[in-house]
């Protein structure tokens, strides 16, 4: 783990500084790291609480939109947009909004959702509906940034976003954010809070019977996951250079779920690897045979659900089990049977 941290924080940026990695590649790697953050956000809920959210891309995009609004507000020139966008012109204000906005949306949506004790399936559909609804609301704002020049971006704290040094700094910040978030989630997993949350996966009524207000736990997890996704989205925007209502499209959230399935639900490191790997794969496929992508994604999803439900993380164990069956050695004995209790 430490090695990986060094590689990301020092190795890759150093290679970029020497010109061995192009800015475009650096960008791609950085965005994939952001998607890893999004995958963590999905896994926090799904692996951590059994709560499938098909709308985490919404919070990802919310973080991105806040930064985009900031960059648009500080852009010189006439194409600055409506006056209310000027609220985002101050950098501290934008930082606060990135941290708070996704959480607030999650709170507003989650509070009635969890109080109503709606079934997990309905919750998943409701998150999709939320995405679709907010996507429509964002149409008046439209696309921010990008080559279209309708709403170009200004400088980030004075530095030109396109500049390679700026991009390198953003990459390092992204890597650092991923490491901090990953570490934080690992810590969270060891708390009694996480114990209660995981117990919700198996039986909410038993948890309630033990005296825990399940709705509160789910709400906290949901808001925290939204916060994490927002950070990822904010950093992603700085590297992607543009954002539009399409970022909230339902398929974006579903793609995040596929990353988690492929990586290994509940393992945290699995979704990180799944997201990173599949993002890189996607960019390669989109360049060479774009029509293949959705078929590939869907196929991977079905394949993993059927044959490798533990994800890539479970692969070594699966292979070992298969190896044992094929090999001449007998299979390892099952765990010791419970002895008869003494009177």
């Amino acid at each position: 783990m430490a090695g990986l941290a060094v590689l990301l924080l020092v190795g890759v940026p150093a290679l970029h500084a020497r010109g061995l990695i192009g800015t475009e590649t650096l960008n791609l790697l950085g965005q994939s790291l952001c998607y890893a953050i999004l995958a963590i956000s999905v896994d926090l809920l799904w692996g951590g609480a059994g709560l499938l959210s098909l709308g985490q891309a919404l919070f990802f995009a919310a973080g991105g939109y806040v930064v985009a609004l900031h960059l648009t507000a500080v852009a010189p020139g006439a194409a600055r947009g409506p006056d209310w966008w000027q609220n985002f012109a101050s950098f501290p204000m934008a930082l606060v909004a990135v941290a708070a906005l996704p959480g607030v949306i999650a709170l507003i949506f989650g509070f009635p959702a969890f109080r109503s004790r709606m079934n997990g399936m309905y919750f998943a559909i409701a998150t999709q509906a939320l995405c679709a609804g907010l996507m429509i609301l964002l149409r008046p704002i439209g696309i921010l940034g990008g080559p279209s020049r309708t709403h170009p971006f200004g400088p980030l704290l004075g530095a030109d976003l396109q500049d390679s040094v700026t991009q390198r700094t953003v990459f390092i910040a992204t890597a650092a954010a991923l490491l901090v978030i990953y570490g934080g989630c690992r810590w969270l997993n060891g708390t009694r809070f996480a114990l209660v949350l995981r117990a919700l996966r198996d039986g909410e009524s038993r948890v309630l019977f033990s005296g825990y207000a399940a709705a509160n736990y789910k709400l906290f997890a949901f808001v925290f996951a939204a916060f994490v996704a927002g950070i990822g989205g904010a950093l992603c925007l700085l590297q992607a250079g543009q954002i539009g209502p399409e970022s909230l499209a339902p398929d974006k959230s579903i793609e995040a779920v596929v990353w988690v399935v492929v990586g290994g639900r509940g393992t945290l490191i699995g979704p990180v690897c799944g997201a990173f790997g599949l993002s890189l794969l996607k960019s390669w496929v989109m360049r060479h045979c774009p029509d293949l992508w959705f078929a590939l994604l869907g196929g991977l999803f079905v394949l993993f659900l059927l044959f490798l439900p533990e994800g890539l993380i479970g692969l070594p164990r699966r292979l070992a089990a298969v190896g044992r069956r094929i090999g001449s050695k007998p299979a390892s004995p099952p765990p010791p049977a419970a002895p008869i209790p003494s009177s």
Partner: protein
Amino acid sequence: MPPPLLIARDLTKTFDGFAALSHVDFTLPKGELRLLMGPKGSGKSTFFDLVTGQIRPDSGRLEFGEGIDLTKLKEYQISHLGISRKFQAPRLFPDYSVWDNLVLSLKGSRSVFATLLYRLSSEDRDHLQDLLKLIGLLPKRDWNADRLAHGEKQWLEIGMLLATKPKLLLLDSPAAGMTDEEMQRTAELLVSLTGKHSLLIAEHDMTFIRRIASDSRVTFLHHGSVLAEGRLEEILADPRVREVYLGRGKRGQK
């Protein structure tokens, strides 16, 4: 005579014309183990439901401790008073270890922030170790709960109730599905709890009842009323009780 912990006076509950409980008077002194006997439909579960606050009585008083009116409190409030109930089928967290099941049940704040910052204190650790010894699952503390034998699951669940440091334990058929050895162990376990805790056990199984009722009193319910109350021998000798059991064939004859 220790002070009364649970008092029911003239307690009545009817469901759509069916009198589940009618004019029941009942007193459980603190620290006592009382057996609640009676055929199915006699009102045992209804009585438990009333005590835990799941349902409200139609009339009568139901008090706990120093005059606390249970009929005015919500379920979670009653649970915080120290009244814990165990149902017939074990309700554990099957994917968790024995230890984790107990940790989850520990008495303490149930709020999100409390559990985020919670660190298992040495006091809590000792308490859990003692509980594990008491329920006989110390060697299996890292076993997954669903790998335990049926009897062990029941003991784990009793352990989980004890982790909340309850004042009153309501046990619904704790011996159901147990082997003879498991029943003996369970009887010893429950009797060892008297004094520190008060127990009200609803049970049909005569083997278990005989093992546990040596020093305890029995309240016999029939059709929602208290038919007899006293020591087990007196109850079984009571002609009214025999009539109830005789009418049901082999059930009471073990």
